């Protein structure tokens, strides 16, 4: 590192007068802001346009690229809500059940495994830890066929079990890793102290570590919520009975039926399906960003 900075020629003096530097900075900052604002607008524009279009009558949607809505056409929402064999809330509730189960499963199973990896010494620990890391990158497609066979043997197809039970078996290894990283940051003295007071590992885990790792648990819960809510692939495979459909599945059949006829209500239900994600994002972005930083930052 030091030789890297030394490689910069020392002979060049910092000779630029302060005035020009200040001017350059004064020009650069607004320029940067314009660029950023433009990017932000471009990024958000499609979503904003979808929200605006969901409030317009069908014959106006593709005529207008603007975002202003003068007379909100709320009928799209009631049309969309009732366009299925069940009201749209039915599918949202199905999604909510799957999401709740997945969150509970991930919180419990991943934190247990993470405690073992972060705090205990046991046989074959390194191999197991490496295996865990590899499974994070394992494509779901590789195991989906035999898994499907297994779950259909168990009679679990068209139930929520294939979407929930694996979470109680810590198959989302990403969260184990996230929690291991977090627990490693908790000073060991704290559990050593509990240990000297005679606490066993179960006590230490539930009464000492778990309360201290609430930020990591929050990150896990939020990510699980968003990923499960948006998940399409596994839900498409395991849920074929329309009554069991979750939000994304309902939405997708809706699009295929309504192509190019009733975009207004399709957009309306798309917006409805994204609302929970937005709310969770707004409430929990602190934890999300921290979570990415701790697992990604090395």
């Amino acid at each position, binding site marked *: *590192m030091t030789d*890297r*900075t030394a490689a*910069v020629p020392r002979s*060049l003096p*910092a000779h630029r007068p302060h005035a020009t530097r200040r001017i350059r900075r004064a020009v650069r900052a607004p320029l940067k802001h314009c*660029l*950023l604002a433009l*990017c*932000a607008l471009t*990024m*958000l524009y*499609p*979503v904003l346009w*979808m929200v605006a279009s969901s409030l317009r009558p069908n014959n106006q949607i*593709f005529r207008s*690229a603007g975002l202003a809505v003068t007379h909100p056409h709320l009928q799209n929402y009631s049309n969309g809500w009732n366009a299925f064999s069940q009201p749209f809330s039915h599918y949202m509730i199905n999604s909510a059940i799957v999401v709740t189960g997945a969150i509970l499963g991930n919180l419990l199973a991943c934190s*247990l495994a993470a405690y*073992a990896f972060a705090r*205990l*010494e*046991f046989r074959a620990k390194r191999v197991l830890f490496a295996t*865990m890391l590899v499974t994070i990158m*394992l*494509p779901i*497609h*590789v*195991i989906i*066929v*035999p898994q*499907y*066979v*297994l779950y259909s043997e168990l009679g679990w197809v068209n139930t929520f079990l294939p979407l929930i039970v*694996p979470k109680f*078996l810590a*198959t989302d290894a990403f969260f184990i890793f996230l929690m291991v990283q977090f627990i490693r940051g908790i000073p060991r*003295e704290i559990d*050593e102290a509990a240990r000297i007071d005679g606490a066993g590992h179960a006590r230490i885990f539930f009464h000492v570590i778990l309360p201290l790792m609430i930020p990591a648990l929050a990150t896990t819960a939020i990510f699980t919520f*968003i990923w499960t*809510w*948006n998940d*399409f*692939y596994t839900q498409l*495979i395991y849920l074929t009975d329309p009554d069991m459909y979750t939000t*994304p599945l309902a939405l*997708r059949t809706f*699009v295929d039926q309504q192509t*190019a006829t009733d975009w207004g209500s*399709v*957009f309306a239900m*798309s*917006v409805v399906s*994204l609302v929970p*994600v937005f709310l969770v*994002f707004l409430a929990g972005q602190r934890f999300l*960003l921290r979570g*990415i*930083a701790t697992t*990604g*930052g090395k």
Partner: protein
Amino acid sequence: MSSINELRRLRGSQRGARQQNKAAFFFLLPWFIGLFGITLGPMLASLYLSFTKYNLLQPPQFSGLDNWTRMLSDERLHKSLQVTFSYVLVSVPLQLAMALGLALLLDRGVRGLAFYRSVFYLPSLIGGSVAIAVLWRAMFGTNGLVNEALAFVGVQGQGWISEPGTALSTLVVLNVWTFGSPMVIFLAGLRQIPTSLYEAASVDGAKHWRQFRSITIPLLTPIIFFNLVLQIIHAFQTFTQAFVVSGGTGGPADSTLFFSLYLYQRGFGHFDMGYASALAWVLLLIVAAFTAVNFWASKYWVFYDD
């Protein structure tokens, strides 16, 4: 801390070790069941199934290398490989370039950093959802928003999604749009570069560009590498967007027939489970090979400080 550890070591670690083994077993029990029961077990099972003919109704019938040799003449498979590779090789570099560019713009004290970061991050949370795929279908359709906008400036548009030549590009655009999550990782990485390095460099007279090339980029290479590995693996598994945009067909003319979509069609459309298992292993081998090459190549360009 060291004195406590000393005490423990003196207290005979034999018993402690056995105890920890036992405790670890219980803590890891759910994970073990998951690992062997629904991850590694099925992986091996799918390897076995890849040598069989299996339609879920009758028991699997051993068919030797049939599934594997069939791949050689399966033109849809070749097409799907071509689609997937072009998608990965084009969209991942573009996405990471966007992510890095904006991370650099946002680094070091832009006012409103939190706001911009959230706005840029949001699409990566919803980019994989059906709702956004629906939106894409509407935007890039024949009568879609993009064409309306083009007509406004007097350009005759085309059906971006119904045209085999452009359908895949719309999905590339969608992937680039989700650059937020690698961007956040870049931002975290940039923050770890000590400012003292930049100070020292500017005392030495290094200009902006020089600092960028000699400090920022080398110290960021581990993060670039990390993002590259993750995003490549991620991109190889693209499914939802292609499925929704093409109505499950991979069309037009198989131009959005991603590998995972083809696998789904074989397995769950035609219940051709043996062949689908063989395809699954091909995907695994491709992803593993890409990751291995990435790790191997990292020796030559990733700069590790320690």
